[in-house]
């Protein structure tokens, strides 16, 4: 009688978690080199935002008589028309961009996600009504809607976050609703219902966690958009008010007026906005490729 070789089912005493994560990270970098670049840019942004007080060489709002000084010497990226150090303003600007981007994406995403869950799970008239509201909100271009809200609320950090959050709500709601519509028909959901589990528990414990994949991809994609909208609102004077350093504000009227004489006023804040948005977009694309089962094998 042939003997079946025994499989060694011994489990190592300690799991090599770090090694596994490193390997997963290595696989991610190999498969998504652009995503890794995006991640690196995001890390740089976070590092600059968290360490702005240490990284900045000057007080970013302190004016001086060193007006429109070219990059070099004491002022690495030059100074603006009020004699403020541009490098320090760009570094501190990352804090505002990241804060507005993250806060508005999270607020808008969570609010939109919950609405999407409600809409998809309850269905019927609730779904119809909520989706028509989302249609109206999505019919307006992102910037136009944010502009209207920011103009109505007035320029401040909180109002900028509120204005951008509202813009993200319908997008998040749509993505989560689409996932909920398919998940709610799964057998395990029906089983839970049959066992008498309440609607709230089914929605929050059994359906919601399974929508996280596409939801995270959406949030990453929206983060770049939020940073860009904040820059646009500040450029138009409706975002974070002076004298706080916002990249969009730095690019606005004063910079446009002095751009010929002092091109560094537009180059560096413009570069910072581009890199931040580029980074979030690359990372978002890579996460989508990794988390979307339809794209995972491609």
């Amino acid at each position, binding site marked *: 009688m042939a003997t079946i070789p025994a499989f060694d089912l011994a489990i190592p005493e300690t799991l090599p978690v770090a090694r596994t994560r490193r390997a997963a990270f290595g696989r991610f970098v190999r498969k998504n080199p652009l995503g890794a670049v995006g991640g690196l840019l995001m890390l740089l942004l976070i590092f600059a935002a968290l360490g702005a007080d240490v990284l900045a060489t000057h007080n970013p709002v302190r*004016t001086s*008589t060193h007006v429109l000084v070219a990059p070099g010497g004491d002022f690495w990226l030059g100074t603006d028309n*009020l004699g403020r150090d541009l490098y320090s303003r760009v570094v501190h600007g990352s804090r505002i961009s990241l804060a507005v981007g993250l806060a508005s994406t999270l607020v808008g995403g969570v609010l939109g996600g919950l609405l999407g869950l409600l809409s998809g799970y309850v269905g019927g008239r609730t779904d119809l009504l909520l989706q028509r509201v989302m249609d109206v909100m999505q019919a307006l271009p992102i910037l136009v809607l944010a502009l209207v809200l920011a103009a109505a609320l007035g320029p401040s950090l909180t109002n900028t976050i509120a204005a951008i959050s509202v813009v993200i709500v319908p997008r998040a709601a749509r993505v989560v609703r689409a996932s909920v519509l398919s998940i709610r028909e799964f057998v395990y959901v029906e089983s839970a219902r049959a066992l008498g589990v309440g609607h709230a528990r089914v929605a929050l414990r059994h359906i919601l966690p399974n929508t996280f994949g596409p939801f995270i991809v959406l949030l990453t994609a929206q983060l770049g958009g939020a940073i860009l909208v904040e820059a646009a609102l500040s450029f138009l*004077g409706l975002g974070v008010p*002076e004298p706080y350093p916002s990249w969009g504000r730095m690019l606005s009227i*004063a910079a446009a*007026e002095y751009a010929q004489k002092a091109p560094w006023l537009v180059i560096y804040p413009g570069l910072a906005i581009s890199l931040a948005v580029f980074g979030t977009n690359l990372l978002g694309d890579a996460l989508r490729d990794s988390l979307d089962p339809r794209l995972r094998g491609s």
Partner: protein
Amino acid sequence: MPSTRPLRPFLFTSLLLALVVAVAPVTAQAPKTGGVLVTSPLSATPSLSPHEESTIATVQQASPCFNNLVYYDPARKQESVDTIIPELAEKWSWQDNYRNLVFFLRKDVKWHDGKPFTSQDVKYTFDMVRGAPDAKARLKVNPRKLWYEAVEAIEAPDPYTVVFRLKHPQPSLLLMLASGYSPVYPAHVPVAEFKNKCVGTGPFKLKDNKPGELVEYVRNPDYFVKGRPYLDGIKFVIIRDRSTQIAALQSGQLDVAGSGWNKTNAENARSGAPKLIIGEADSNVNDNVLINFKKAPFNDVRIRRAINLALDRKAYLIGPRQGAATFGGALLPRPAGVWGLTAPEVAKLPGMGDAKKQKAEAKKLLAEAGFTASNPLKIVVATRALAIYVDTASWMVDQLEQVGVQATLEQIETGVWHPKMTRLEYQVALNLTGVGVDDPDAQLFENYHCGSQRNFSGYCSEEIDRLMAQQSQTLDRAKRLALVNEIDRKLQADGARPILGWGKQYEVHWPHVKGWAVHENSIYNVGRRQDVWLDK
């Protein structure tokens, strides 16, 4: 054979004379008629009624339509009583020791709708502006009512004579009547129509008015000054963005740049079009700090003085103004101004001294008033949401922070800016004030008199009001100047409305634009443009 040598000097002189005669037409060119001048004003105008507005945008776009009784000579840069020329009034006469001002009107003037101009139109206009009980019309907003407070009655004894009877002598009345803010309106046209239309006697007739887009005029063929205007028309095109204005000028779509340009704008424009001509002049527009006297703790003179001292004027000149400003008190400093403080006096004003010492003194004053590092003074600095305001206000916030004041900036939309200031709904504000006439009565009564609509800081001093009335009635010019300077010094010491500086104006135009006048002590009184011509 006779020598030809004695003839040589004669021949040489003749040749030189011939050359001079030949060149003369080039150097003193005769004006050409025709062509449409295109320019861009500061902004769109809320109406075409200068009496109801307080912005240069209205004066720029409405002045070609109207005439005054008298006006400032466009060709003379510094406005004063000596540069006043007749317009609708052929001549005028002060009588009864400056108690009666009599105007003798032209008889050949017609309104743009063909109706004749008479003394009733003058009486109608200025009764309305001074808010006379028997006035035939009322203005919705009347920002310069105080200019005419001394007028007791206006009489029109015949169709071509008008008499302004005064409560007391006021030599300044003539200067205020010459302002771009003092045109004569037709009595037969309801004042509400000036929201979008214009019926005047001026050199140009309104052709088209698309609010927010353009105001277009054509030549008035019946204009009473023969041979004027030279132009066939003027087009004011509204271009909001400054860089678009620059591009429009460089490409030749504009003949003259819009007003409100700074030095950098002018230099940027010329860097792309080297033939452009730049003119720099004083403007009688000041950057000033409004401190709300009606709100605690700003009613404490120590706080006001600390704020005033914290603002280093030399840094202001280099930073927000890029070197294009002069320092002064409540009135435009000399030599551009007529009534300002002298340079040595200006040098002694708060904010003009050593920055470190002044900031230390400001900190000390704040501490005396109870505001220290552990209990800082927290304020909101309001300003108008326009770049020229925001830059200076941002600078101001930082200067205040350097003496321990925690300041934040609030930007207010243009539409609500003046109503908010009038209602004193702010703590501290950065403001720009354009002075309509370089005259103490116009500037002081409007901005510092107790209860004036445009006294945005709520400052009120019985002593200053008394001195203002006294200077207004003083006929001796030297004595009046001494009184005005005394008032100015007191206003600066009280921190009534600290002046940061007086900005310069930059006028940029193509060489083919001739006769485009600029005055150095007001931007409001050169808008008629009947002498402008195009050398094309």
